[in-house]
């Protein structure tokens, strides 16, 4: 029996919706450029991001007096080229965000699917676990983890992932709960499909929309958390360039060498704005039910 999914129906509907025509061009463009940059940093960066020279300390951006075209955005406190650090840093920050979201998303989605589908005691236990995790103060948890395991990219990813999964789980579970009662699922069950197949082949595809929206909206938040962790001394360790740690370190020079904190900060802002704009559009497009997010 043919599996009846909503896919084709959905895609047709999407094409008709007026939202589709209002594609947010600017954010998409910016993000595409960003992803490309972070994927090929060695081709684009003019210098080694860790190359120091105390003599070149605090060069201002090239459009200011004293600036140097070779060091477009100027240099930081150790004479390292800011532009190169930004380029390499984008890779680190995006990677951290991606990995932690994948970690949190995987765990959260799995738990949400199981919890929503099986219901009963499994549901209660899993959701209580989720609640516990959400009640834990996020930054403190990440800081504690970092102190225990030593600060590193791995620690940040694990800490953020663990904090995030509960949110994914709750929302996915909600979706599954409402999907469970739908006709096409009941039909699949009657047709004798195994539970596993139902979850993976029928429920999950309909949950993907929500997942994508959630992921997009959380990216900005993760990078900000990374910056806050660096501020507390528990983020991506020196000397690795990462936007969050660059902003946190740069705050010591905030007035005299404003570019060290402002340029990564501005780019971070643009990135979060773009992701949020994109996420909003995706949500309106794919799953308007999620508006409260």
């Amino acid at each position, binding site marked *: 029996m043919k599996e009846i999914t909503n896919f084709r129906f959905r895609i047709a509907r999407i094409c008709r919706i007026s939202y589709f025509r209002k594609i947010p061009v600017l954010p998409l463009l910016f993000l595409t450029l960003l992803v490309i940059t972070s994927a090929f940093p060695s081709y684009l960066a003019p210098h080694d991001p860790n190359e120091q020279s105390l003599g070149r300390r605090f060069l201002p951006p090239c459009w200011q007096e004293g600036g140097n075209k070779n060091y477009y955005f100027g240099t930081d406190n150790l004479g390292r080229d800011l532009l190169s650090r930004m380029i390499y840093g984008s890779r680190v920050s995006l990677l951290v965000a991606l990995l932690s979201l994948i970690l949190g998303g995987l765990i959260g989605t799995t738990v949400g699917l199981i919890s929503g589908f099986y219901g009963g005691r499994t549901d*209660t236990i899993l959701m*209580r*676990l989720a*609640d*516990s995790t*959400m*009640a*834990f*103060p*996020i*930054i*403190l*948890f990440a*800081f*504690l*983890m970092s*102190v*225990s*395991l030593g600060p590193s990219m791995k620690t940040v990813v694990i800490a953020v992932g663990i904090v995030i999964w509960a949110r994914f789980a709750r929302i996915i579970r909600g979706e599954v709960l409402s999907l469970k009662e739908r006709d096409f699922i009941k039909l699949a069950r009657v047709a004798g499909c195994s539970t596993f197949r139902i979850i993976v082949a029928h429920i999950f595809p309909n949950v993907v929309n929500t997942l994508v929206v959630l992921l997009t909206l959380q990216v*900005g*938040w993760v990078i*900000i958390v990374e*910056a*806050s962790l660096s*501020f*507390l001394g528990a983020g991506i360790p020196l000397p690795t360039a990462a936007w*969050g740690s660059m*902003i*946190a370190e740069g*705050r010591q020079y*905030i*007035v005299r060498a404003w570019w060290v*904190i402002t340029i990564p*900060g501005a780019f*971070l*802002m643009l*990135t*979060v*704005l773009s992701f*949020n*704009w994109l996420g909003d559009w995706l949500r309106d497009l794919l799953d308007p039910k999620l*508006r*409260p*997010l």
Partner: protein
Amino acid sequence: MVSLLFGRFLQAIVTLFVLAVIVFFLSRLSGDPIELILPVDATMADRQVLRSTLGLDRPLTEQFFLFLKGAIGGDFGTSIRERKPALDLVLSRFPASIKLASFAMGVAILIAFPLAVLGAVNKNGSIDIIARIVGVLGQSVPSFWSGLLLIIIFAGHFKILPAAGTGGWSHYLLPGFTLGWFVVAGMMRLLRSSLLEVLDSEYIKLARIKGVSEFKVVCKHALRNSLIPVVTFGGVYFAALISTAVVVETVFAWPGLGRLAYDAIGFRDFPVIQAVVLFAAFLVVISSLLVDILYAVLDPRIRIGPKTM
């Protein structure tokens, strides 16, 4: 409804228990406070003496039971660093935290509400777009950056507001605004979408047909009904604000729970870490319980129970 509440209450206890386990083992994973307290030339014997004084030489499970037993009675042990009861420390810093969180929520409401209403009414108009940008900005800038900028401008340059510490009402402005801005986006988005849904509903259309002024329609009818998700969000977020304000508290030297926890972690002060985390979680759990009650009062469908939905 009583059974519902009782169930939620039981679940809250379980949540706290799980959390207690997590924080107990996690903080012990973070290292050894002995090394941080003792002077450089302390001997092995000194270390042993301090360890048993602090009760750290007993097996972990025994320590955990002692901790649980105490916690239920309200005794969270003695701070390793300050040699004072951990709960006293937490309670002494709690007022500062809650005052700041309240102020921040107030700021958030003051900004988010008008912007959300205006945005919903003029959907996709210029005000809507500006409102959304303002909101998102609050979530796209790390709070230590915005906080420092505010300090440099208003305290350092214009000298009209104090940079740090508690004191009169003027001390609340900068940190409260920094903290509140973060919340604005979430609150605004929630209210706006909730409003949009409500504004689409039948009885609003009816009111309009009846000739009720747009202002009254929005403010009196629509707003009241769109508050529910906002209250839910706000209630739980408020409790979370108290403990996640570490960064703002550090920048503004605010003597709150966030900084207490941060210092405690740095010093491996287990009793205080445990006390702060559990206290913060307790606040979150209580507030979500209260919100659930409020929810049930406001929305009769919940009162009756899920089966009828």
